[in-house]
């Protein structure tokens, strides 16, 4: 166990744990846009910036991104230091300039008292904040269907050659975890389309409800050795099956009890 002080509160944390986690557990509001427990810390949005020091540092202070700074014994953390708050505000202002049309960023900006960006807003923005969650999650799940391309302000998320990504299995994890909800997809009948690639949704063989894509189910059964048949029925019909089976067992046990 490691002992540290966050905004005046003395806390304990597990060795190797990242500062941001401990901060959030304390209920302190430190914004973070690129952090997700499913993937390694990335340090792209820089909003989780905090000021740290130690008794032994002689008043010297350091500014670090808490999402990837492991807790240390004796650390004194200030999440609301003037410089930190100013930096956060500027960073949000910059993001708002990049994504002027994003309701999520507008809200975050409003929380920091910014109604309009003080910088040059991007024209025709796709409202992607380049947190990289989509690509990182996709890669971590084992598909790596999409990636970042280009540099600097031109950096963007794309499929290889901007064509329907061959490795995409249509799980939607990218779109669902996008903090600004900018990855479009559509569902119509048993068709799902994302990244311009069309997928067949599995139709429950009992009730006709749509579940995951056929490609995803195949990938899962191959990667994790799960019988493909499991995926033919939706969860509600699986429960109904379970009830039926259990009822049967119960029926037998009633007869058994009557006999005894």
């Amino acid at each position, binding site marked *: 166990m490691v002992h540290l002080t966050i905004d005046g509160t003395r806390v304990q944390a597990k060795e190797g744990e990242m500062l941001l986690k401990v901060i959030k557990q304390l209920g302190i509001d430190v914004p973070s846009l690129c952090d*997700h*427990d*499913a*993937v390694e810390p990335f340090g792209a949005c820089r909003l989780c910036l905090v000021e740290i020091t130690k008794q032994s540092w002689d008043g010297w202070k350091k500014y670090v991104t808490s999402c990837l700074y492991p807790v240390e014994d004796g650390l004194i953390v200030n999440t609301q230091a003037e410089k930190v708050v100013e930096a956060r505000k500027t960073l949000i202002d910059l993001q708002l300039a990049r994504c002027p049309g994003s309701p999520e960023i507008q809200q975050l900006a409003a929380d920091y008292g910014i109604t309009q960006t003080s910088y040059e807003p991007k024209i025709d923005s796709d409202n992607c904040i380049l947190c990289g969650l989509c690509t990182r*999650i996709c890669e*971590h*799940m*084992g598909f790596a269907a999409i990636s970042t391309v280009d540099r600097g302000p031109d950096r963007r998320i794309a499929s290889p050659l901007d064509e329907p990504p061959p490795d995409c299995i249509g*799980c*939607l*994890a990218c779109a*669902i*975890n996008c903090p600004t909800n900018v990855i479009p997809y559509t569902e119509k009948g048993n068709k799902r389309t994302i990244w311009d690639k069309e997928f067949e949704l*599995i139709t429950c063989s009992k009730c006709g409800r749509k*579940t*995951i894509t056929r490609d*995803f*189910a195949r990938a*899962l059964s191959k*990667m*994790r*050795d*799960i019988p493909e048949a*499991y*995926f033919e*029925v*939706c*969860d*509600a*019909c*699986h*429960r*109904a*099956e*379970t*009830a*039926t089976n*259990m*009822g*049967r*067992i*119960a*029926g037998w046990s*009633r007869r058994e*009890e009557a006999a005894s």
Partner: protein
Amino acid sequence: MTNRFVVTPNLCIGCRTCELACSFRHSVNGKPGQTRIFAVAGPMKEMWVPVTCLQCEDPACAKSCLVDAISRNEETGAMEIDQEKCVKCMACVAACPFGCSIHDQQHHMIVKCDLCGGEPACAQFCPTKALVYQPVGSAKPKVVA
């Protein structure tokens, strides 16, 4: 794990108290949440079965999770979803052969039975003892036919 669910379907009267209890125990922001247990109508008339996760030995939910968000709570024996890790891909919902990983559409979360940390509310509140949570190997509840 020393305790487990014992389900006696012929005691179940379909009152759905278990669902209510689960819902309240898993409330979100003070409002009742998604139930993880379902009183499902059985194959025969007037016959109900409380269906919830039985915390399989080698669970399909955990196997199917590509980000390893589902793991066993060693204290309670429950397979739990780490909500911070879950990427909501629905793999476990599709994979569980008992239909016990559930998509909470209202809060857009994937949920499942977590044994309420060791004291499942459903069993506590079941009026007929169709559902009990008791030490493995202890006597079956008395059947009230």
